[in-house]
C-alpha cells in the first residue's frame, strides 16, 4: 500500500465519518434530553435523502446554488415532520417505560419506511451532486473526490456549530443540563416540554441534513434508513448515548474503519460497524466513554 493510498483511504474514511457524525449526533442529543431512543431517526434521514432527490429534479439544475438550496430547504421540512411526531405521539409516552417508547418509535419506522416506498417507489435514485463537486480535486499530491472534501468542510462546521450551541448559548446550556440533571430543570422554572420539542426538532434537522448530504454522495434506495440507524447505534455504543463528543469519535472510527476494511474485504465493508460493536462489547461492554457498573 502506497502512502498516497493510505491517506486517500484515511481522508475518505474521515469524510464518511463526518457524515455519520452529523446524523448520529442528532440521535444522541435526542436521547440525552428526551431519554427516548428514536428508532425512526434513520427513517427521517432517509426521508431527507429522498426529498432531496425529488426537490433536485424539480429545481432542474446542477449548480452549487441549487445544492445549497437543498441543504437549506429539506432539513427544516424533516424538522417540521419531527415536530408533528413529537407533539402528537412522543409526548404521550415520556412517562412510560422504555419498552413502550422503543416500540412506539419502532412503529414509526414501519410506517415511515413503507410511506417512503409508496411515495417514491422502489427504484434506486441517482446521485444529486452539483457540477462543482463532481470531479476530484488535487490536494497535496492526492486526488480526492471533491464531494468528500466538501463533506470534510461541512462536517466540522456542523460540529463547531453544535459545540457553540451547546456551550455558548443559553439554550445549549439548558440542553446540557437536561442531559446531566433532568430533575433540576423543572425546578428551575424552565419550560421543559418546549425544550424537548426543540431538541427533537434539532435532531430531525440533523437527520435531514445528513440525508441531503448522502443524496449527493451515493445512490439512494429503500434500505438506507435501517442501514444508517444501525451505524448510528454502533456510534453510540462506542461513544455513549447523550455525548456529542463521543458521537464524533465513534463516527470517525466507524468511517475510517469501514474505509480501510474495504481493501482486504470489500464485501465485508458493510459489516464493519457490527464487528466494532461486537469487539467493544467484549472488551468494554459499557462503551468507550461509559463507566463500568462496579
Amino acid at each position, binding site marked *: 500500500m502506497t502512502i498516497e493510498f493510505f491517506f486517500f483511504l484515511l481522508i475518505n474514511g474521515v469524510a464518511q465519518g463526518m457524515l455519520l457524525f452529523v446524523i448520529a449526533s442528532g440521535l444522541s442529543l435526542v436521547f440525552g434530553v428526551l431519554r427516548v431512543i428514536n428508532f425512526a431517526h434513520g427513517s427521517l434521514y432517509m426521508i431527507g435523502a429522498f426529498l432531496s432527490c425529488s426537490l433536485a429534479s424539480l429545481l432542474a439544475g446542477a449548480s452549487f446554488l441549487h445544492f445549497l438550496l437543498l441543504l437549506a430547504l429539506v432539513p427544516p421540512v424533516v424538522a417540521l415532520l419531527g415536530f408533528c411526531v413529537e407533539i402528537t405521539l412522543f409526548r404521550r409516552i415520556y412517562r412510560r417505560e422504555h419498552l413502550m417508547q422503543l416500540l412506539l418509535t419502532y*412503529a*414509526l419506522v414501519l410506517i415511515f419506511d413503507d410511506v417512503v416506498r409508496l411515495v417514491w417507489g422502489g427504484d434506486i435514485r441517482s446521485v444529486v451532486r452539483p457540477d462543482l463537486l463532481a470531479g476530484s480535486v488535487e490536494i497535496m499530491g492526492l486526488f480526492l473526490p471533491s464531494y468528500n472534501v466538501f463533506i470534510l468542510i461541512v462536517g466540522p462546521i456542523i460540529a463547531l456549530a453544535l459545540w457553540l450551541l451547546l456551550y455558548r448559548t443559553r439554550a445549549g446550556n439548558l440542553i446540557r443540563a437536561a442531559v446531566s440533571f433532568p430533575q433540576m430543570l423543572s425546578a428551575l422554572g424552565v419550560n421543559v416540554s418546549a425544550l424537548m420539542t426543540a431538541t427533537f426538532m434539532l435532531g430531525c434537522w440533523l437527520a435531514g441534513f445528513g440525508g441531503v448530504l448522502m443524496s449527493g454522495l451515493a445512490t439512494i434506495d429503500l434500505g438506507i434508513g*435501517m442501514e444508517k440507524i444501525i451505524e448510528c447505534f454502533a456510534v453510540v455504543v462506542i461513544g455513549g448515548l447523550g455525548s456529542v463528543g463521543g458521537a464524533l469519535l465513534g463516527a470517525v472510527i466507524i468511517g475510517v474503519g469501514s474505509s480501510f476494511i474495504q481493501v482486504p474485504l470489500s464485501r465485508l465493508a458493510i459489516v464493519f460497524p457490527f464487528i466494532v460493536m461486537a469487539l467493544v462489547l467484549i472488551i468494554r461492554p459499557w462503551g468507550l466513554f461509559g463507566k463500568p457498573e462496579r
Partner: protein
Amino acid sequence: MPGSTSGKMQQIAVAVVLATLFGLPFLLAQLGSKGEFWIWVTTEMIIMALFAVSLNLIMGFGGMVSFGHAAFFGTGAYVVALLMKKAGFGFVPALIIAPVAAAIVAAIIGWFCVRLTGLYFSILTLAFGQLLYLVVFQAYSFTGGDDGIHGIPKPEILTPVNYYLLCLVIFLLCFVLMRMLINSCFGLTIRAIRENPERARFLGVNDRRYQLLNFIIAGSFAGLAGGLFTELNRFAQTEFLHWSKSAEPILSSLVGGMFSLVGPAIGSTVLIFLKITIQQIHKNLVEVWAIILGVILLVVVLFAPEGLVGLYQKLRQRNVKS
C-alpha cells in the same frame, strides 16, 4: 384461586378449542379450492403462532425486547431449504436439524446481546438480525441471495390436511413444553430477573447465564417454526430474515397480550386474519400492510399495551367485583 366451576369451564373450553382445531381441516377440505386456500392459511396461522409464542419467552417473560427474532426463524427456514434442496435430506431429519442450527445461531448472537440490558440489548438484536440478513443476501452462490431457494421437495404423504395436522401437533407439543418451562424453577428465575435483575443477582443468580439460556431456547422454537414455514411454502427467501419479519411476533405479543403464553398465539392469528381480510376487501391494501402494522402497534402501545388477553382479564375482574 380456582373455584371448581371456573376450573371445569376452562377445561371444557380447552377441549372445545382442541376439537375445533383438529376438525377444521376436514371441514375445509369439503369446500374445494377455496377450502384448500383456507387450509393453507390456517396452517400458516399455526406456524406463525409458534413463532410469536417463542419470542414471548424472551419478551413477555424475560422482559427483553428482541428486534432480531427473525434471524432464528430464517435460519431454520434456510437450513431446511438447503438440506432438502441441495443436500437431498428428508423432511424429518431436516426439521430436526433446523432448531439445532437456530440454537447455535442464538447462542452466538445471544452471547453478545445479553452482555447488555434494556435499550442496548434491543439495539444489538436488531443489528445482528440485520447482519445475518445481509450475509445471507450476499452469499448468492450458497443461498441464492435475493432470489431465495425454490422448489423444495415435499413428500407425498404431506397433503395440505396432513401438513396442517402435523403443524398443529408440533405446535401443541411446543406449547406444552414452553408452558412447563414457564412454570418451572427456571421460568420463575427468568421472571424474577425480568422484575429486578439486581435483586436476582443478590439472590445468587447469574442473570446473564439464564437470560442466554432463555434466548437460545426461544431461538430454537423460532427455528422450528421457520423450518415448518419453508416446507409449507416450498421456498425460502431473504424476507424471512428481514427486520420487518421480526416485527410480526412483537406485534402479535402486544396485540394478544405479553404476559401469557396464549396471548401471542391469539395475536398472531388475529393479525393474519386481518391481513387476509384486507386482501379480500381491496387487493391493493396489502401494499400498505407495513403501515397498517405500524398503526396497529401505535394504537396498542398508546391505548392497550396489555393486549387482548390483558383486556379480557380486566373485564373478568370487573365482573367478579360487581
